[in-house]
């Protein structure tokens, strides 16, 4: 069952890859004429959408079979949660494509979905037993609803990104272009993170440390990447592994910090390479492909995504979370970092809605806000989960 589940996920991944290609062709390719001779765009968008649906059905298969194998809903560790978030994002895309039929949204969203699923795959993927605190239906309801909410909100980001790439003036080198390129660099870093993890995993790289943890006890930690950043008072146990250049304080998860550093460095290399090949900012290289896109439509898509996603996120990330916390942790709110960041996300999107509604922050400003919102969601997923260990820490 577990093998079947893994294979279904693989199928999903390749379907999404195909969908990405189809959507890209539909946006950049030639327009076709239909029988009456009207320009009607080409059919690649429809193919992309169908492939997406097939991939999504396969993803549902993955979810169900893994649930059957584990005996509990597969949203209880980093691998499972992140994978689910990727699937939720593709689900959100299907909804918004249904409303607006914008192919360019698929061209931007599907690669992000793939990236998230690939990111998930670097975490240990075996089926884990549930510790008592996680044995709750409310927890599952909370986690799945939150992920779906975050998925829909992320569509706002994808649409915002399209808006920016479509409208920014890349010939002028200013703050805006810098930050847009920074987003591109961040995405490239995630790609390089996945690549590096796989390269060192194939090489079977390991470096073990004896160190002193945050409670002052001796503990062991194993790195899967060469340790640039070592643990607190760490002593290298593996022969021939690299000696860390810097030692981290006990409260920080040094192996994760090390991984982040590696990704950022590799990201720089990959990004520089891309710039050399393209000879322009990455955004500027994509821009000509988006000539035919109406900025107003993309703007409305991003707002619509947030208007749909905000209630779902609130319900899952705050209300169901409170119900679960009341049952499992004796109080509905405890100012745990993860909770606080869900609140921050909520407040941020509330501010977004008010700015848009009353201050008329449409178009470009709205798009930048969508980018920041997505950054907050990702920060919560990656940084708060891995680095600030709290009640919710999965890994």
């Amino acid at each position, binding site marked *: 069952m577990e093998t079947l589940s893994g294979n279904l996920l693989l199928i999903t991944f390749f379907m999404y890859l195909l969908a990405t290609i189809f959507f890209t062709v539909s946006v950049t390719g030639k327009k076709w004429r239909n029988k009456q001779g009207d320009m009607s765009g080409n059919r690649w968008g429809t193919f992309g959408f169908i492939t997406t649906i097939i991939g999504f059905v396969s993803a549902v298969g993955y979810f169900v079979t893994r649930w059957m194998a584990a005996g509990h809903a597969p949203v209880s560790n980093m691998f499972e949660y992140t994978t689910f978030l990727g699937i939720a994002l593709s689900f959100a895309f299907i909804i918004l494509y249904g409303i607006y039929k914008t192919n360019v949204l698929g061209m931007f969203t599907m690669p992000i979905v793939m990236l998230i699923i690939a990111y998930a795959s670097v975490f240990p993927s075996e089926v884990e037993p549930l510790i008592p605190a996680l044995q709750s239906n409310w927890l599952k309801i909370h986690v799945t609803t939150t992920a779906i909410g975050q998925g829909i909100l992320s569509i706002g980001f994808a649409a915002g990104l399209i808006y920016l790439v479509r*409208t920014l003036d890349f010939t002028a080198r200013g703050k805006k272009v810098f930050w847009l390129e920074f987003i591109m660099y961040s995405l490239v870093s995630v790609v390089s993170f996945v690549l590096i993890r796989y390269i060192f995993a194939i090489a079977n790289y390991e470096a073990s440390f004896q160190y002193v943890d945050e409670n002052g006890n001796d503990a062991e930690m194993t790195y899967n990447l060469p340790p640039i950043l070592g643990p607190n008072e760490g002593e290298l146990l593996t022969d021939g592994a690299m000696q860390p250049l810097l030692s981290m304080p006990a409260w920080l998860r040094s192996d994760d910090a090390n991984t982040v550093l590696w990704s950022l460095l590799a990201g720089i290399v990959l990004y520089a390479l891309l710039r050399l090949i393209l000879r322009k900012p990455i955004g500027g290289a994509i821009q000509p492909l988006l000539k035919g896109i109406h900025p107003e439509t993309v703007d409305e898509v991003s707002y619509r995504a947030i208007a749909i996603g905000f209630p779902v996120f609130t319900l899952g990330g705050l209300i169901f979370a409170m119900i679960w916390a009341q*049952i499992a942790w004796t109080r509905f709110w405890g100012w745990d970092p993860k909770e606080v*960041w869900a609140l921050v996300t909520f407040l941020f999107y509330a501010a977004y809605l008010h700015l848009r509604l009353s201050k008329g922050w449409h178009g470009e400003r709205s798009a930048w806000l969508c980018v920041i919102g997505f950054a907050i969601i990702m920060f919560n997923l990656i940084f708060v989960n891995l680095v600030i260990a709290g009640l919710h820490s999965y890994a």
Partner: protein
Amino acid sequence: MNEIKCDCGHVNPYGTQLCQNCGKPLEEKGKNASMVDMRYEGAARRSQTYNKSMVDKIWNFFSSVKVGIWIIVLTLVASSIGTIFPQEMYIPNTVDPAEHYKDEYGIAGQIYYTLGFHNLYGSWWYMALIASLGISLIIASIDRVVPLYKALKNQRVPRNEAFLKRQRLFGHTTVRDADNTLDKAKAVLKGKRYNIREENGSLLAEKGRFSRWGPYVNHLGLVIFLTGAMLRFFPGMYVDDIVWVREGETEVIPGTDGQYFIENERFIVELYDENDETFQEALERAGGPTVKNFQTDAVLYKRADTSVVGTTPELEEVKEEDIRVNHPLRFDNFALYQLDYKLNELNTMTFSLDNRETGESIDTIEIDLFDPKDEYDLGDGYKVVIDSYFPNFEFNDDGEPSTTSSIPDNPAFIFQMFSPEHPDGEYSFVGIQRNEDVFKENDYQMSFRDVNTKNVTALTVRKDLTLPFIIVGASIFMIGLIQGSYWSHRRIWIKQKDKDVWIAGHANKHWESLRKDFQSLSDETGLVMPEDKLKQKNDKESEGKG
């Protein structure tokens, strides 16, 4: 204050921007603009109208969305600062916070502590932020909902041309048969579930007006929620306590005025089976046992009405239930949660009084470590007296034997052993792993024979009377949020004079959907598709740029 009279004869209250009756712009600004500002239907709002007294100024301050956004953003920033280092409640409570933050996080930690960020969410200024959020929500909502409600309720069907022309979606068509076109349009819009009103050749089709109340409903829910959160600080609303219960024992539940008691019949910790196929890999990686369940088999008792406070209570069983993580035991606004435990706590110890020379055992005594007797008479002139008892033994700073607590984690005794040979008694010191006679010349000794242990469970006792507010507030909030987000308010005006037909449309959001409705209308009736002024404006601007 001056009332404003419109050309149509209607008298509007001071501050009105669009005539309540015909929609004609009343202010110069509106008359010259290409689009009317449809927000709140151009109705007079208190905050836009008065700014004289102190009350006006406070009202205007809190009703401003700009101020509201600032409050939201400040709360957001403050909240995130609180996650930089752990809050005080998450650091071990055995350490001094001032030292802890400095030692763990260096100079940054010290600054964090000095600024009071270690207890940020309970600080007066954080509370003040939340309170002003609440005030802002109330004032901003009242300021808008009243005029909006009146304006939408009293809206008239025929509108001034100036009003129609200045809508974002506006189109003009000359038709052959106006009546027929209007009938067709009506049918199309009915099919799209618009509510339709007609008056003198004018038509108003409206849909989803209730979604306009969404924001106010959700703000109301938030206010109720915040009120509930603040009530926490009233005495009696909130109980947060812990009770430790040993197996087989019954303890009074704190916070219940001695009315309820809890018995721990058994406490267990279950582990996952390491040979379980499904989880084998994960269990191996974890490298140690993984807990499957913490459980207290509990019985809840209530004091019988007849029993007198102060005497040993008579108890009536209320219910028997397993308390597990995620499965609290609930009764009467209270809940008991599995919080902590201690396995194999020492409970009784058995010793024998032996003759050292012959090895003969005189008799055994069993000592209840929580309630040791002063003396144990063994008959025939044998007797054991507990001279001193140290439940958690250690040598204090002066080198004297002492105890650090009353929990028998490391019990030690000084026994006085009486025997026919020694009617004055011999002294011996007995603890775990040690047995010393004090003067090194005893004929008798106390030998350790046996020990009985029990598991102890710790339960959180929780009462939270603010929960109804929280639940009602959160529910209303969600209803309002969905109401405002998943529906939109769309209106279509059609005005006909002879062969001329004007159509105009307004949506409070999601214009694309309104445009689709117009598209169907245009397809079915031949009325021209209205132009989108905003899109045109933007296109012009971007042309200008490009």
